[in-house]
């Protein structure tokens, strides 16, 4: 915990993103957000609310039209809805490529791969090929690959949206544990209210046209949590009703 209390937060100030010139689509407008060190923040909203756009901006995969994003010198790693494993590489090869791109010396690769596969609970999967794995296993490998970068901030763009409920619940537990163990700051995009409440220390609710933050909700529930916890369900229900009211026929 040393130093973490004094660490600068991530500051997103007045960020906007317009696609296709000045008269184009406003994907994001005037977004302000401060994320504390080791906080687990969920960006929640319907499709088109700019949550994925915001994540790409934080990941530096895209540049904002207005405003600034200050990560306080932190590095980011990203996970997407699709695992996007490189199909010509084995599981180990996929993780090794991330290690190579991060400048980790070759001598350490094998040890790091073993360790990372243990972390995501896929020990011994080194030689397997992506197409031989189930969707959940692929996401575990993608997670290991992201963790290989040793980034302080993990950005997740609906990483479990394509998985079945049982696999998703298992991975919720893993990500909660790994974020805790590795002292990660997590920004997690989802359109699933229950998932946001299940995972987040804080839920940031966004709305479309133009994409913006409309409210935020702290979730001071103890961890580990479960999808079925009555308190998770109750809070998700409340948030859900409110979103429906706000949407009020707009979509």
């Amino acid at each position: 915990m040393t130093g973490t209390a004094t660490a600068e937060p991530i500051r997103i100030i007045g960020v906007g993103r317009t696609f296709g010139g000045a008269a184009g689509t406003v994907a994001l407008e005037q977004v302000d957000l401060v994320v504390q060190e080791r906080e687990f923040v969920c960006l929640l909203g319907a499709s088109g609310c700019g949550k994925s756009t915001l994540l790409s901006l934080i990941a530096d995969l895209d540049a904002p039209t207005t405003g600034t994003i200050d990560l306080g010198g932190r590095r980011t790693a990203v996970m997407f809805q699709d695992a996007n494993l490189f199909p010509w590489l084995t599981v180990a090869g996929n993780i090794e490529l991330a290690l190579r791109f991060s400048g980790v010396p070759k001598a350490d690769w094998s040890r790091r791969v073993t360790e990372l596969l243990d972390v995501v609970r896929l020990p011994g999967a080194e030689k397997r090929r992506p197409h031989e794995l189930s969707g959940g296993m692929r996401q575990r490998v993608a997670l290991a690959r992201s963790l290989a970068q040793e980034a302080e901030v993990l950005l997740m763009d609906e990483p479990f949206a394509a998985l079945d409920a049982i696999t998703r619940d298992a991975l919720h537990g893993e990500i909660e544990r790994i974020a805790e163990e590795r002292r990660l700051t997590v920004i997690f995009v989802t359109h699933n209210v229950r998932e946001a409440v299940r995972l987040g220390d804080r839920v940031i609710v966004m709305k479309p046209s133009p994409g913006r933050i409309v409210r935020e909700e702290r979730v001071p529930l103890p961890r580990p949590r479960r999808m079925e916890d009555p308190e998770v369900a109750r809070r998700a229900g409340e948030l859900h009703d409110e979103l429906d009211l706000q949407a009020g026929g707009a979509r």
Partner: protein
Amino acid sequence: MSAVADRKAAPPTSTDARGRGALGSRLRGTVLPPLLAVVIALAIWQLLVVLEVKPAYVLPSPATVFGQLFTLLSDPTFLSGIVRTLSRGILGFLIALVIGTAIGLAVARSRFVRSAIGSLLTGLQTMPSIAWFPLAILLFQLSETAILFVLVLGAAPSIANGLIGGVDEVPPPLMRTARSLGGRGFGLILRVILPAALPAYLSGLKQGWAFAWRSLLAGELLVIIPNAASLGQLLQFYRELSNAPSLYATMIVILVVGMVVDQVFARITNGVRERRGLSALRN
């Protein structure tokens, strides 16, 4: 210790059984159909001979032709013709491989080069290779160089276009992931873009070989070099001597070489597809 030995001993028997079953179905699936096609083709050929559609000195029977083929396969001139044509083909293809790959990379990575020569490459692909020969002969006389010149012009555009297509079609999510993992510059090209483009590049190579082989044979018919027997030249020679059996036998050799090389490419491509889990799509 004995448990390990047992485990080691057990699998081979089961793989053997599976292997034999797989071999059986593979025979039925891959060997039987082409064999049947050949038998039917030979039957039609024999029928045409029996019906005397053409006189025997123009249309010899399959038996005569294959008999002649076996004789030719022990004739040093014929064998050196096969070797010469094959080595020209391989040498020219390798030159085209280097040039085509270099051009393909340049076009794929540079917008300037693309707008400069991108459409020219496709244009060159549609150019009948035989149309290059007068120019080639003008430039290089009746020489090996003239043949190689046309062969490379025929094959390189296909190879370049295969690579360009492969690079262009790298799925954007894969690129985004690679960038988010920190891939940049040459490392990104070498470790992500080129491997992702490999299947399209391989089909470019295969098409390049087909063009090379065609250009080569056309070249050997036109560019006659004295004392250097080649398959194309032998074809011309046998026609002049009205040696129909040898003419047919030579054509069979040309066809078989083309098919064998095609099989080699197919093997490589299938191997790549299988490792990537793409072969299931065929079933």
